[in-house]
């Protein structure tokens, strides 16, 4: 009985965490996202097995570029004007500027992950210095993509150890830096590594809370 109650509580907690967090401004319809710049995704993919985990850097690079393009393509379906440049196509000169924006986001994301509810209250912001990011000058919204994936070395072992990918899409006001929405998607199979297109339905589902704002 105790175990059932604990599992139920855990399920409830996971459900709440899995919900997208949307800023009241967006929810009330006071803010629309018409021109979106999707920043290159930053992902961490590791391969794990009986003898621990190891990195998959070349695969990670490709996955990041594919995921960036996929999120851009998915958002385009919602009629917003989208610009999504995979990191491989960003010039070396612009990468440093991009790295600064990404670093700023990472420091704020750490706090969002600690208390997601603050997004609804408009508690988090990257600061208006994001308006100085040249590549975003014509955009009204920035999208940051983060994902962590685990792949089993051996698929039979993987059946026990849950290969999965969990990612986040964060919508940020390109003028003020305010976090507009923090959406999460989870894929609990390893198919995403074969083709990133396997994630389409998961990403679309995560976008439901902001559909009306696109």
């Amino acid at each position, binding site marked *: 009985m105790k175990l059932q109650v604990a599992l139920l509580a855990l399920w409830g907690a996971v459900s709440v965490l899995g919900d997208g967090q949307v800023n009241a401004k967006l929810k009330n319809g006071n803010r629309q996202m018409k021109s979106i710049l999707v920043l290159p995704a930053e992902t961490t993919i590791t391969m794990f097995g009986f003898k621990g985990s190891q*990195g998959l850097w070349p695969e990670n690079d490709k996955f990041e570029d594919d995921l960036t393009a996929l999120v851009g393509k998915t958002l385009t379906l919602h009629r917003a004007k989208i610009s999504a440049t995979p990191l491989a196509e960003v010039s070396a000169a612009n990468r440093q500027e991009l790295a600064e924006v990404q670093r700023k986001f990472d420091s704020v994301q750490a706090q969002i992950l600690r208390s997601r509810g603050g997004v609804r209250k408009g508690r988090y912001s990257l600061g208006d210095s994001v308006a100085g990011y040249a590549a975003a000058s014509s955009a009204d919204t920035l999208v940051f993509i983060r994902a962590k994936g685990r792949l089993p070395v051996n698929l039979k072992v993987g059946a026990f150890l*849950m290969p999965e990918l969990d990612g986040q899409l964060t919508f940020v006001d390109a003028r003020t830096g305010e976090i507009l929405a923090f959406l999460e998607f989870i894929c609990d199979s390893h198919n995403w590594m074969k083709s990133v297109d396997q994630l389409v339905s998961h990403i679309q589902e995560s976008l439901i809370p902001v559909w009306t704002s696109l």
Partner: protein
Amino acid sequence: MKNLSGWNRVVFCALIFAARSHAQTRTGSSFTKPELALLTQCEALEHRFDRRALLFHDTMLDQHLAGAATPLLPDLPPTHVHWRFLVLRDPLVNSFSLPDGTVYLSTGLLSLLENDDQLASVLAHEIAHVTNGDAFAFQREYRKKETVRSVTTLAAVASSSVLGGGIAALLAPDLLAEAIVAEGGRPIQLWITSGYGDEAEHIADQAALGLLARAGRDPGQLARSLDLMNDPLDELPVLTFAADRAKLRQRLTGLQTQPAASRAVDGKSYFAAAENAIRENITMDIDSRRFRTAVASARRIQTAHPVDARALYVLGEAYRVLGPRTAEPSAEERSPEGRRAAVKNFASRTAEEEDKILAATPPGRAARDSNWKKTEALFQEAAHLDPQLADPHRGLGVLYSEQNRIDEARVQYREYLEMSPTAPDRLQIENRLAALDHPGTAH
């Protein structure tokens, strides 16, 4: 070993180091498959850093690092080792080496060090890790431990077959933790952030002392550099090896028998080489809420260039963001409780919330007013010294806006835009001006 003291101990450890170095001179075919895979991963890591623009390139600094490291290197590099010394754009104080001979130093560490002998002590420590083959030993140990752990976990999962896959994972917190490993996988993440283990670190320190003495450097500067790491101006919730006080204390204890920093080492040549990295790190310190560290670095630059308008501007900006804090932490803030509270506040409050809470206290208000005065004076002096420099006007605009001196803020912002019509932050300043003209709109 316990009966040895002082330089005898150094010589003893240097002999061990030499013996271990010799043991590492292996042929390519004697490397195991996982070791070769690890070497491949090291190459990929540099590509990864480069892709994300995390490598800091500065010809003068690169040459200086190579020059400081060369006298510390063994005559023959171990197999698969090609010595390289690279700088990472990272405000955290950290250094690490990869088994292929690549040594990384963060800009945060370079900002902390005072002179070439301290730089050499960090390099010597990392060189000793590479020569000792600590990464390979760490990897072997890790794989052994993980095998045991995985078998135990799998047994637990199998014994509870009534539970679904998702629930099974909850029984294995260690495996769930794998989801947050860094990109290189757990072993690389562990040694980069936590070091190689007490024994390996101790041996590397002792070997570093021998290398420093051989290169004519002051071995006492190794302990001095650890002291600097042990007393940071700002706390962060990220615990790296160089920020872990327990480990630093342990390393310092291991160095207690050594003479203290024996002579004042001139830091001018070091500062000249590292200045660009220190300047760049100030922005990163501010972004990562290390405001006191930013002020300390900006002061250092301004001291070296007392009539440089840009240096004055950077110092003024550092004081502005310091806001309701003092430039040095109080005794209370330096206490273990104070440091714990700072870490907790960092994680639970946004920068704006923290500023607001601090500014609501009398000491916070006093500190903010004092910092505002310094900021204004520094910006004005910078504008006076170099009338062509637009940044001080931008800074004054931000400062006056914070102080609710709206008309003065407008004047300064407009002057900035006139002086710098193609500024990358033009849109940001125009937004701020619009917000001043129409209070209540987004700012």
